[in-house]
Protein backbone atom coordinates (compact mmCIF):
# COMPACT_ATOMS: atom_id res chain seq x y z
CA UNK A 1 0.00 0.00 0.00
CA UNK A 2 1.18 3.47 -0.75
CA UNK A 3 0.28 6.45 1.39
CA UNK A 4 -0.30 8.41 -1.76
CA UNK A 5 -2.89 5.99 -3.01
CA UNK A 6 -6.46 7.18 -2.83
CA UNK A 7 -9.18 4.81 -1.72
CA UNK A 8 -11.26 2.76 -4.07
CA UNK A 9 -14.87 3.67 -4.68
CA UNK A 10 -17.88 1.56 -3.80
CA UNK A 11 -18.40 0.70 -7.45
CA UNK A 12 -14.94 -0.81 -7.65
CA UNK A 13 -15.68 -3.33 -4.97
CA UNK A 14 -16.98 -6.83 -5.30
CA UNK A 15 -17.08 -9.87 -3.09
CA UNK A 16 -14.53 -11.61 -5.23
CA UNK A 17 -12.12 -8.76 -5.12
CA UNK A 18 -9.60 -9.42 -2.37
CA UNK A 19 -7.09 -6.71 -3.08
CA UNK A 20 -8.06 -3.32 -1.68
CA UNK A 21 -6.14 -0.11 -1.38
CA UNK A 22 -6.45 1.66 1.96
CA UNK A 23 -6.80 5.43 2.32
CA UNK A 24 -3.85 7.80 2.49
CA UNK A 25 -2.55 9.16 5.81
CA UNK A 26 -3.95 12.53 4.81
CA UNK A 27 -7.41 10.99 4.57
CA UNK A 28 -7.00 9.44 8.04
CA UNK A 29 -6.20 12.89 9.47
CA UNK A 30 -9.30 14.30 7.76
CA UNK A 31 -11.47 11.56 9.28
CA UNK A 32 -9.94 12.24 12.71
CA UNK A 33 -10.79 15.93 12.21
CA UNK A 34 -14.42 15.08 11.52
CA UNK A 35 -14.50 12.84 14.62
CA UNK A 36 -12.97 15.62 16.75
CA UNK A 37 -15.56 18.15 15.55
CA UNK A 38 -18.42 15.73 16.22
CA UNK A 39 -17.06 15.03 19.72
CA UNK A 40 -16.83 18.78 20.39
CA UNK A 41 -20.46 19.20 19.26
CA UNK A 42 -21.55 16.31 21.48
CA UNK A 43 -19.79 17.76 24.50
CA UNK A 44 -21.20 21.24 23.76
CA UNK A 45 -24.72 19.87 24.27
CA UNK A 46 -23.82 19.35 27.96
CA UNK A 47 -24.00 23.12 28.47
CA UNK A 48 -27.25 23.50 26.49
CA UNK A 49 -29.46 22.90 29.49
CA UNK A 50 -32.44 24.55 27.84
CA UNK A 51 -32.57 21.97 25.04
CA UNK A 52 -35.47 19.54 25.59
CA UNK A 53 -34.67 15.83 25.83
CA UNK A 54 -36.89 15.08 22.82
CA UNK A 55 -34.39 16.96 20.65
CA UNK A 56 -31.17 16.43 22.61
CA UNK A 57 -31.25 12.63 22.83
CA UNK A 58 -31.95 11.96 19.10
CA UNK A 59 -29.28 14.55 18.25
CA UNK A 60 -26.72 12.78 20.46
CA UNK A 61 -27.70 9.41 19.01
CA UNK A 62 -27.23 10.64 15.44
CA UNK A 63 -23.76 12.04 16.21
CA UNK A 64 -22.82 8.82 18.02
CA UNK A 65 -23.89 6.66 15.06
CA UNK A 66 -21.98 8.88 12.60
CA UNK A 67 -18.80 8.59 14.73
CA UNK A 68 -19.31 4.84 15.02
CA UNK A 69 -19.72 4.59 11.24
CA UNK A 70 -16.62 6.67 10.50
CA UNK A 71 -14.34 4.61 12.78
CA UNK A 72 -15.70 1.27 11.53
CA UNK A 73 -15.73 2.22 7.85
CA UNK A 74 -12.43 4.12 7.60
CA UNK A 75 -10.16 3.14 10.50
CA UNK A 76 -11.30 -0.50 10.59
CA UNK A 77 -11.35 -0.56 6.77
CA UNK A 78 -14.80 -2.14 6.52
CA UNK A 79 -15.42 0.16 3.58
CA UNK A 80 -12.54 -1.37 1.65
CA UNK A 81 -12.23 -4.95 2.86
CA UNK A 82 -14.15 -8.01 1.79
CA UNK A 83 -17.85 -7.67 2.62
CA UNK A 84 -17.80 -10.97 4.55
CA UNK A 85 -15.98 -9.21 7.41
CA UNK A 86 -18.72 -6.60 7.60
CA UNK A 87 -21.41 -9.28 7.51
CA UNK A 88 -19.92 -11.06 10.54
CA UNK A 89 -19.59 -7.82 12.50
CA UNK A 90 -23.01 -6.45 11.55
CA UNK A 91 -24.59 -9.81 12.43
CA UNK A 92 -23.28 -9.50 15.99
CA UNK A 93 -24.29 -5.84 16.16
CA UNK A 94 -27.84 -6.48 14.90
CA UNK A 95 -28.27 -9.56 17.10
CA UNK A 96 -27.15 -7.56 20.15
CA UNK A 97 -29.44 -4.63 19.26
CA UNK A 98 -32.49 -6.87 18.83
CA UNK A 99 -31.83 -9.02 21.91
CA UNK A 100 -31.26 -6.05 24.22
CA UNK A 101 -34.12 -4.00 22.74
CA UNK A 102 -36.38 -6.94 23.69
CA UNK A 103 -34.65 -7.17 27.08
CA UNK A 104 -35.26 -3.47 27.79
CA UNK A 105 -38.84 -3.74 26.57
CA UNK A 106 -39.54 -6.70 28.88
CA UNK A 107 -38.26 -4.64 31.82
CA UNK A 108 -40.39 -1.65 30.72
CA UNK A 109 -37.36 0.59 30.21
CA UNK A 110 -38.99 2.63 27.46
CA UNK A 111 -42.10 3.20 29.55
CA UNK A 112 -40.08 4.34 32.56
CA UNK A 113 -37.68 6.44 30.47
Amino acid sequence: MSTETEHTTESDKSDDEHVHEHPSDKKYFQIAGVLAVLTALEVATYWLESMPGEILIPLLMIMMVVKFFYVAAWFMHLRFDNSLFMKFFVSGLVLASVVYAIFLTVFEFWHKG
Partner: protein
Amino acid sequence: MTNQTHSEETSTGLSHNKLGMWVFLGSECLLFGALISTYLLYRGRFADGPAPGDIFDIPFTSVSSFVLLMSSLTMVLALSALQRGDERNNRLWLLTTALLGAVFVGGQVYEFTTFLREGLGYTTSPFSSAFFTLTGFHGVHVSLGVIFLMSLYVSSARGNLHKERAETVELIGLYWHFVDIVWIFIFTVIYLVPSPTS
Protein backbone atom coordinates in the same frame (compact mmCIF):
# COMPACT_ATOMS: atom_id res chain seq x y z
CA MET B 1 -2.79 -5.02 4.37
CA THR B 2 -4.40 -6.80 1.52
CA ASN B 3 -5.79 -10.29 1.63
CA GLN B 4 -3.90 -11.26 -1.47
CA THR B 5 -1.24 -13.14 0.48
CA HIS B 6 -3.89 -15.46 1.90
CA SER B 7 -5.78 -16.20 -1.28
CA GLU B 8 -3.71 -19.30 -1.97
CA GLU B 9 -3.62 -20.49 1.62
CA THR B 10 -7.27 -20.61 2.68
CA SER B 11 -10.44 -22.04 1.20
CA THR B 12 -12.17 -18.66 1.36
CA GLY B 13 -9.27 -16.69 -0.03
CA LEU B 14 -9.46 -14.57 3.10
CA SER B 15 -7.26 -14.48 6.16
CA HIS B 16 -8.81 -16.80 8.73
CA ASN B 17 -7.14 -14.83 11.52
CA LYS B 18 -8.87 -11.69 10.34
CA LEU B 19 -12.15 -13.50 9.88
CA GLY B 20 -11.82 -14.88 13.41
CA MET B 21 -11.14 -11.40 14.78
CA TRP B 22 -14.31 -10.04 13.14
CA VAL B 23 -16.37 -12.92 14.56
CA PHE B 24 -14.86 -12.21 17.99
CA LEU B 25 -15.71 -8.49 17.69
CA GLY B 26 -19.26 -9.38 16.65
CA SER B 27 -19.58 -11.50 19.80
CA GLU B 28 -18.18 -8.64 21.88
CA CYS B 29 -21.18 -6.55 20.76
CA LEU B 30 -23.36 -8.98 22.73
CA LEU B 31 -21.16 -8.71 25.80
CA PHE B 32 -21.13 -4.91 25.89
CA GLY B 33 -24.80 -4.82 24.88
CA ALA B 34 -25.63 -6.78 28.03
CA LEU B 35 -23.57 -4.48 30.24
CA ILE B 36 -24.98 -1.28 28.70
CA SER B 37 -28.57 -2.54 28.90
CA THR B 38 -28.10 -3.48 32.55
CA TYR B 39 -26.71 -0.03 33.30
CA LEU B 40 -29.68 1.62 31.57
CA LEU B 41 -32.08 -0.41 33.71
CA TYR B 42 -30.31 0.42 36.97
CA ARG B 43 -29.14 3.99 36.45
CA GLY B 44 -32.15 5.34 38.33
CA ARG B 45 -31.66 3.03 41.31
CA PHE B 46 -29.05 4.82 43.39
CA ALA B 47 -30.70 4.27 46.81
CA ASP B 48 -29.07 6.63 49.35
CA GLY B 49 -25.83 6.89 47.37
CA PRO B 50 -24.82 9.52 44.82
CA ALA B 51 -26.91 9.70 41.63
CA PRO B 52 -25.22 9.58 38.21
CA GLY B 53 -26.26 13.16 37.41
CA ASP B 54 -24.64 14.39 40.64
CA ILE B 55 -21.31 12.63 40.30
CA PHE B 56 -20.31 12.54 36.62
CA ASP B 57 -17.59 15.01 35.62
CA ILE B 58 -18.43 15.56 31.96
CA PRO B 59 -15.53 17.94 31.08
CA PHE B 60 -12.99 15.47 32.50
CA THR B 61 -14.55 12.46 30.77
CA SER B 62 -14.75 14.46 27.52
CA VAL B 63 -10.98 14.94 27.55
CA SER B 64 -10.28 11.26 28.15
CA SER B 65 -12.82 10.32 25.45
CA PHE B 66 -11.02 12.62 23.02
CA VAL B 67 -7.69 11.01 23.94
CA LEU B 68 -9.07 7.52 23.19
CA LEU B 69 -10.63 8.71 19.94
CA MET B 70 -7.32 10.15 18.75
CA SER B 71 -5.57 6.89 19.65
CA SER B 72 -7.57 5.29 16.83
CA LEU B 73 -5.90 7.74 14.44
CA THR B 74 -2.41 6.89 15.71
CA MET B 75 -3.24 3.16 15.52
CA VAL B 76 -4.24 3.35 11.88
CA LEU B 77 -1.13 5.44 11.15
CA ALA B 78 1.01 2.70 12.75
CA LEU B 79 -0.53 0.12 10.42
CA SER B 80 -0.18 2.40 7.42
CA ALA B 81 3.52 2.96 8.20
CA LEU B 82 4.27 -0.76 8.47
CA GLN B 83 2.35 -1.55 5.27
CA ARG B 84 4.71 0.74 3.36
CA GLY B 85 7.75 -0.72 5.17
CA ASP B 86 8.39 2.28 7.42
CA GLU B 87 9.27 0.43 10.63
CA ARG B 88 10.55 3.51 12.47
CA ASN B 89 7.24 5.37 12.14
CA ASN B 90 5.39 2.16 12.89
CA ARG B 91 7.16 1.99 16.27
CA LEU B 92 6.54 5.69 16.89
CA TRP B 93 2.78 5.43 16.28
CA LEU B 94 2.47 2.14 18.20
CA LEU B 95 4.12 3.75 21.20
CA THR B 96 1.95 6.87 20.87
CA THR B 97 -1.19 4.72 20.73
CA ALA B 98 -0.13 2.77 23.82
CA LEU B 99 0.60 6.01 25.68
CA LEU B 100 -2.78 7.50 24.75
CA GLY B 101 -4.44 4.28 25.90
CA ALA B 102 -2.52 4.44 29.18
CA VAL B 103 -3.62 8.06 29.65
CA PHE B 104 -7.23 6.97 29.17
CA VAL B 105 -6.87 4.14 31.71
CA GLY B 106 -5.15 6.55 34.12
CA GLY B 107 -8.10 8.92 33.75
CA GLN B 108 -10.48 6.10 34.52
CA VAL B 109 -8.52 5.15 37.65
CA TYR B 110 -8.64 8.81 38.74
CA GLU B 111 -12.40 8.93 38.07
CA PHE B 112 -13.02 5.72 40.04
CA THR B 113 -10.99 6.89 43.05
CA THR B 114 -12.80 10.25 43.00
CA PHE B 115 -16.15 8.46 42.99
CA LEU B 116 -15.02 6.24 45.88
CA ARG B 117 -14.02 9.33 47.91
CA GLU B 118 -17.45 10.81 47.19
CA GLY B 119 -19.17 7.70 48.57
CA LEU B 120 -19.85 5.70 45.42
CA GLY B 121 -18.49 2.20 45.99
CA TYR B 122 -19.05 -0.93 43.93
CA THR B 123 -21.87 -2.15 46.21
CA THR B 124 -23.35 1.22 47.15
CA SER B 125 -26.35 0.83 44.83
CA PRO B 126 -27.51 -1.08 41.75
CA PHE B 127 -26.48 1.99 39.72
CA SER B 128 -22.92 1.94 41.08
CA SER B 129 -22.54 -1.81 40.50
CA ALA B 130 -23.75 -1.53 36.91
CA PHE B 131 -21.60 1.56 36.27
CA PHE B 132 -18.36 0.12 37.65
CA THR B 133 -18.94 -3.22 35.92
CA LEU B 134 -19.53 -1.60 32.53
CA THR B 135 -16.76 0.99 32.61
CA GLY B 136 -14.40 -1.36 34.46
CA PHE B 137 -14.90 -4.05 31.83
CA HIS B 138 -14.15 -1.50 29.13
CA GLY B 139 -11.07 -0.33 31.05
CA VAL B 140 -9.79 -3.91 31.19
CA HIS B 141 -10.21 -4.13 27.41
CA VAL B 142 -8.19 -0.93 26.95
CA SER B 143 -5.51 -2.19 29.36
CA LEU B 144 -5.21 -5.46 27.42
CA GLY B 145 -4.94 -3.40 24.24
CA VAL B 146 -2.07 -1.39 25.74
CA ILE B 147 -0.28 -4.66 26.61
CA PHE B 148 -0.79 -5.94 23.04
CA LEU B 149 0.54 -2.66 21.62
CA MET B 150 3.61 -2.72 23.84
CA SER B 151 4.24 -6.33 22.79
CA LEU B 152 4.17 -5.19 19.16
CA TYR B 153 6.50 -2.31 20.00
CA VAL B 154 9.01 -4.61 21.70
CA SER B 155 8.75 -7.08 18.81
CA SER B 156 9.45 -4.26 16.35
CA ALA B 157 12.34 -2.90 18.44
CA ARG B 158 13.91 -6.38 18.36
CA GLY B 159 13.60 -6.39 14.59
CA ASN B 160 10.85 -9.02 14.43
CA LEU B 161 8.01 -6.92 13.05
CA HIS B 162 8.29 -6.34 9.32
CA LYS B 163 5.99 -5.44 6.45
CA GLU B 164 5.20 -9.14 5.92
CA ARG B 165 3.69 -9.31 9.41
CA ALA B 166 1.49 -6.24 8.96
CA GLU B 167 -1.60 -8.36 9.46
CA THR B 168 -0.64 -8.88 13.12
CA VAL B 169 -0.71 -5.10 13.59
CA GLU B 170 -3.98 -4.93 11.67
CA LEU B 171 -5.61 -7.51 13.99
CA ILE B 172 -4.54 -5.64 17.12
CA GLY B 173 -5.70 -2.45 15.39
CA LEU B 174 -9.17 -3.93 14.81
CA TYR B 175 -9.40 -4.79 18.50
CA TRP B 176 -8.23 -1.29 19.44
CA HIS B 177 -10.72 0.47 17.14
CA PHE B 178 -13.51 -1.73 18.48
CA VAL B 179 -12.68 -0.70 22.04
CA ASP B 180 -12.82 2.89 20.81
CA ILE B 181 -16.25 2.55 19.19
CA VAL B 182 -17.60 0.87 22.34
CA TRP B 183 -16.45 3.95 24.25
CA ILE B 184 -18.11 6.23 21.67
CA PHE B 185 -21.35 4.44 22.61
CA ILE B 186 -20.69 4.47 26.38
CA PHE B 187 -19.68 8.14 26.41
CA THR B 188 -22.90 9.21 24.71
CA VAL B 189 -25.40 6.87 26.37
CA ILE B 190 -23.97 6.85 29.90
CA TYR B 191 -22.39 10.30 30.27
CA LEU B 192 -23.95 12.74 27.78
CA VAL B 193 -27.59 11.67 27.81
CA PRO B 194 -29.00 13.52 30.85
CA SER B 195 -28.83 11.26 33.92
CA PRO B 196 -31.10 11.15 36.99
CA THR B 197 -30.14 13.38 39.89
CA SER B 198 -30.93 12.93 43.57
